[in-house]
């Protein structure tokens, strides 16, 4: 068992504003939890508090039910992979991986066996005699992972371990990490600002902003039902379109145009100030004479696999981004007709920017 629980955890430096505020999180045994958020949102600080590298100001941290507030990092049975890898430059790859094991009273032969076995799994066997300066970025990253894996900890903590790799290597290593998790089934908590990593790797993702948890859920759940406009904008590339709208009767008005209010939002009190959210892939171009809305094309960006259009609706700021099939033929200035997928429309309160409750999901 290796659950990780954070109960009302906060962190402040001196008398300054708290950098982590009232975080409540439970990571189940064997889960791959991703902490996602922009730079400075407190995700790395949260990770460091779990690791025991930062004292917490308020709250409690438990690992497997055991209170860890005053337990030093070395006694928490946690392994961490750092963004900079933090390999010991004066040690060989073998010694880097064996360093943590030597404190645990294992025999030399046992340490050698474990290191060799882990190195083989990470294709490091031929590099054991090298020092970190003689390794490539990808090799160093594998050594950092190997150093963590060889300890067989209860929990893995990974602090943006892929951020120093090039795009191609990042994609490959991402898959390797997912396979590794499937193989060893150890609880992993992964910090990143990259939503692609979060969506592809996490069992659940926890989105943070300004020191607080904004939403926790399965990746597609959070993607389809963002809790507020921050999550709606942060997740997805291109981001969710957020348009000022109003509700009157069974109609949602967007600028000078209108469409039917989705069934899920029938319970909402009419108001002239809501924010309508719709993902670019949930907007469909229609032939002339069809479609609920009319828009004018501003830019056309053929991306190969798809074509991205930027459109304006009359009287509405900002522009609407649409992901159209790759053979879509449009010109800037052209008038087009569109439909929004009613089941994908999300409404947010214009004042609080929180998602409005639906009759289906609450």
């Amino acid at each position, binding site marked *: 068992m290796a659950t990780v629980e954070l109960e009302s955890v906060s962190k402040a430096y001196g008398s300054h504003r708290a950098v982590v505020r009232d975080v409540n999180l439970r990571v189940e045994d064997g889960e791959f939890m991703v902490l996602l958020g922009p730079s400075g949102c407190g995700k790395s600080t949260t990770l*460091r508090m779990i*690791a*025991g*590298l930062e004292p917490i100001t308020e709250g409690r941290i438990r690992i497997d039910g055991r209170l860890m507030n005053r337990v*030093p*990092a*070395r*006694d928490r049975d*946690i*392994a*961490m992979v*750092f*963004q*900079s*890898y*933090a390999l*010991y*430059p*004066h040690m060989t790859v073998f010694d880097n991986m064996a*360093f*943590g094991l030597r*404190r*645990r009273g294992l025999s030399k032969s046992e340490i050698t066996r474990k290191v060799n076995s882990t190195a083989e799994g990470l294709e490091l066997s031929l590099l054991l005699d090298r020092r970190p300066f003689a390794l490539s970025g990808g090799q160093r990253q594998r050594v950092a992972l190997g*150093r963590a894996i060889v*300890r067989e900890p209860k929990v893995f903590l990974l602090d943006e371990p892929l951020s120093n790799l090039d795009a191609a290597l990042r994609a490959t290593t991402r898959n390797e990490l997912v396979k590794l998790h499937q193989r060893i089934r150890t609880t992993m908590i992964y910090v990143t600002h990259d939503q692609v990593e979060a969506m592809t790797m996490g069992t659940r993702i926890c989105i943070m902003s300004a020191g607080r948890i904004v939403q926790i859920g399965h990746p597609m759940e959070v993607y389809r039902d963002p809790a507020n406009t921050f999550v709606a904008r942060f997740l997805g590339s291109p981001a969710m379109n957020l348009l000022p709208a109003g509700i009157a009767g069974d109609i949602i008005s967007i600028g000078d145009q209108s469409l039917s209010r989705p069934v899920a939002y029938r319970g909402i009190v009419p108001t002239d100030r809501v924010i309508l959210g719709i993902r670019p892939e949930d907007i469909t171009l229609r032939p002339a004479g069809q479609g609920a809305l009319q828009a004018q094309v501003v830019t056309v960006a053929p991306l190969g696999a798809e074509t991205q259009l930027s459109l304006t609706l009359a009287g509405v700021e900002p522009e609407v981004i649409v992901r159209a099939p790759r053979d879509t033929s449009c010109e800037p200035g052209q008038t087009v007709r569109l439909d929004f997928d009613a089941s994908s429309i999300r409404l947010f309160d214009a004042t609080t920017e929180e998602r409005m409750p639906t009759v289906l999901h609450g």
Partner: protein
Amino acid sequence: MPWRRRIAQALLAPVVLLYTLATVGPFVWIVVLSLRITPDIFRNPYGAPVPAHWEKYAAAWFGSNYDVYFFNSLLVVGCAVAILTVVGAMAAHALARYRFIGNRFCYFLIFSTLIFPPQLIIIALYQILIEYGLFDTRIGLVLVYVSLNLPITVYILEGFFRRLPSDLYDAARMDGYSEMLVFWKVSFPIAWPAISATIILNTITLWNEFLFAIVLIADDSRRTLPIGILKFMGDQGNDVGMVATGLMISVVPVLLIYAFFSEKLIQGITAGAVK
């Protein structure tokens, strides 16, 4: 353009040659003098060492207590440098890596002692050592040497430790190491170039230290090498030849250390200097 460079080199060469002669010349002269006897030197100060009197080294070593002085220097400087290295590195590590109340004040306090010239503190030190029964003792001299060189040691190493990534220390803590072991297993080995530089600097300065040794050591059996040379300087004149031989005996270990470790010295100084 090549011709400009040639002109520049041609103008620079004599300057470099003059400078080299000015710095190396006296040393070469002392080497020559160490192999000549004093009457020959007075007859012809710049003459060649023909014949070369190698027996002067044996005479100095066995006949003039140089073996005792050498051993004392080795003991005093060795102990002082060992203490300076360990204590200085630990102090620098603590000041660089840990946040605690008074950190900067401590650092300033240690560093500010560098501004005091030795002549200012020697009388007070003399009195203190007498009161604590450390006057005319090698341990007393060791402690004085440590206090004199600790500030510069801490200064050089603090800058180096401060530049080490904090992730390294976090990784070592996560690997199960206590703060003391993190220092010995991670900090100290990584800082070895800078630490080597401080070892060399301290060894060279303390090996040649004269003022405190002559004031704080009275007994001949506890004298260090720089003081031993005084034996050949008397009221009726100086045995110049033996003075030169004595100087050579005292300088050879320093030369050897510098020859073998000069690269580390440059690495260490520049590593600690850039913050």
